[in-house]
């Protein structure tokens, strides 16, 4: 399953897919388009990716996390295309026997995605449009 999608992401389906009978805790992070940013009104975000590299970078992150958080099972998905306020842009879900492990893997996952995956967004709002 690819990490990038141009279709709406359903966090619930990732939650169901990630968990194993031996897991007692599942931590999810859901990033959504919000209606303001740095004081500006936002109506839409266009997400553009360097697709092949973004897939590879997310695969590397998944591999790194399977080493650094071996107890956790992790799924990640990032949306591309034009998103309205409230739409889900990214989901990271980590399932583990204990909650510490799940929280740590989930947090680590979203931090690495935001730091490294080649995705950009153009903000549309009352002030016009700009890459942010």
């Amino acid at each position: 399953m690819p990490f990038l999608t141009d279709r709406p992401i359903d966090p619930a389906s990732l939650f169901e897919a990630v968990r194993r009978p031996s897991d007692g805790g599942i931590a999810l992070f859901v990033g959504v388009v919000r209606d303001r940013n740095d004081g500006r009104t936002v109506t839409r975000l266009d997400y553009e990716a360097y697709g092949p590299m973004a897939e590879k970078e997310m695969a590397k992150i998944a591999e790194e996390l399977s080493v650094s958080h071996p107890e956790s099972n992790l799924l990640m998905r990032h949306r591309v295309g034009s998103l309205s306020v409230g739409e889900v842009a990214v989901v990271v879900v980590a399932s583990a026997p204990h909650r510490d492990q799940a929280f740590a893997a989930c947090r680590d996952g979203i931090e690495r995605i935001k730091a490294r995956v080649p995705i950009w967004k153009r903000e549309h709002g009352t002030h016009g449009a700009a890459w942010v």
Partner: protein
Amino acid sequence: MRIDVLLFASLKDEVGPSMPVELTEPATVADLRRALEAAHPAFGRFGRRAMVAVNEAYAREGDPVRSGDAVALLPPVAGG
């Protein structure tokens, strides 16, 4: 050798989806940066915060750039 450097986001809007640069072999990522900065003022705007990707992976300044490599100049990423 000629390298067509892929561009994204603001750089793509301003310059186009790719920028051809001419490099003398052997060349490094640092050589590529210098060629880009000479070609268009937009390419210096982000400084080192713009990363270079070679064959769809982050590259360092001393890494080689070879004929046929897929090369991209990436503005600071903003996913999530």
